[in-house]
């Protein structure tokens, strides 16, 4: 009987000490640091160190439906914005450092006429400051006033009347100047403790499809692209880490 009692006491004491030891490790403070994961395929958050950038909605594969073809380089084009398909994602940075968001688009095969531009709501104000603070601005205005991301380029995207130069500049703007390590293309900065709408504007280049510009108020959506793959990648607001090297 005494032996059994001793065994019971020993078991209880050992269990308590064991639980205390486990508790010691269970209360270890966390150490986290700056890193990034890409957002894709069901994952709906970016994690940046101790920061968290969570999109409210996310786009995995989008069906892009565009009402009409248009011309980015045409200074007389006043219906550019009406020919856009815009995908929007809400990103929230709950951390204490600014985050940088890049985007990768995988166009369907034989969709060379499809182009895109990444921007945020704050870009409307920036364009207005550059053009006329008293008038409302458009996506065309944003593209028109935007210069190369890398300060060494400092060139406007749009060259009036020259589609070749315009789209070459757009390519550099979107993906970075070849051979320039510091230039990794366009991105959106999400400030700390901020929620931001990030937009992707898609359009079809009239020069490639060669059809007559249509009245967008009477025709149904004409250019459809199913399953356009959109990947957002977020990280520190600093140069050099993108594209992610596997």
């Amino acid at each position, binding site marked *: 009987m005494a032996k059994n009692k001793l*065994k019971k006491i*020993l*078991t209880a004491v*050992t269990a308590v*000490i*064991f639980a205390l*030891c*486990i*508790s*010691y*490790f*269970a*209360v*270890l*403070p*966390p*150490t*986290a*640091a*700056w*890193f990034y994961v890409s957002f894709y395929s069901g994952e709906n958050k970016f*994690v940046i*160190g*101790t920061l968290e950038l969570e999109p409210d909605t996310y786009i995995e594969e989008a069906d892009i439906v565009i009402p009409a073809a248009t011309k980015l380089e045409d200074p007389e084009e006043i219906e550019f914005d009406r020919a856009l398909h815009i995908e929007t994602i809400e990103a929230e940075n709950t951390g204490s*450092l600014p985050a940088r968001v890049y985007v990768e688009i995988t166009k369907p095969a034989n969709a060379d006429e499809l182009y895109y531009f990444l921007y945020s709501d704050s870009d409307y104000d920036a364009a207005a400051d550059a053009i006329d603070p008293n008038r409302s601005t458009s996506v065309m205005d944003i593209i028109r006033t935007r210069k190369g991301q890398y300060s060494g380029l400092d060139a406007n995207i749009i060259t009036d009347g020259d589609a070749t130069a315009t789209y070459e500049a757009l390519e550099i703007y979107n993906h970075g100047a070849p051979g320039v390590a510091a230039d990794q293309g366009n991105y959106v900065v999400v400030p700390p403790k901020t929620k931001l709408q990030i937009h992707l504007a898609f359009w079809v280049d009239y020069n490639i499809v060669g059809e007559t510009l249509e009245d967008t108020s009477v025709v149904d959506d004409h250019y459809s692209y199913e399953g356009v793959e959109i990947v957002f990648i977020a990280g*520190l*607001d*600093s*140069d*050099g*880490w*993108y594209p*992610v*090297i596997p």
Partner: protein
Amino acid sequence: MSKSLNRFLNVLLAIFILITLALTGFVGYLHFSGLKGFAVISPSMEPEILKGDAVFIRFTEVEELQVGDIITVVSPKGDRAFTHRITRFDSKKTKVYTKGDKNQSEDPMPTDISLVAGKVAFSLPKLGYLSETIGSKVFLALLASSVAALILISSLLSLYKDRKGGKKNGKKQA
């Protein structure tokens, strides 16, 4: 209870005691040697230190810190910490630049040397998951339910034994 079952339970108890003794010894060593532990919750130092590992750091004098050391930096408030590798110092060794092994570039800003909590002495795999798991609300709810269930079962067993003991006495008296 059969002898073989009794022996088996005794062996289990012995193993449990040994494990607990080893754990206690390890915790005691950590505590008295000045080592401080952190649970790694990000993969920025992979493959050297994996997410879910636990790192144990020891305070190191500034003069002894070198490029390549893995250090833990604590925020001024002490509420956040990160563990990265030293890439360089400023000229007076008052600031330290760090980088996660898995990151493509250095951390966005240098850290004041006074915020360096220590240098990583060693890491243990998977131990960091304990704090993540046990701290979770689901786990705590399950634990509370299990404890409540155990207490209930124990009480019921005790009650059953008391009643059985009472019946036996009743029979004897009769």
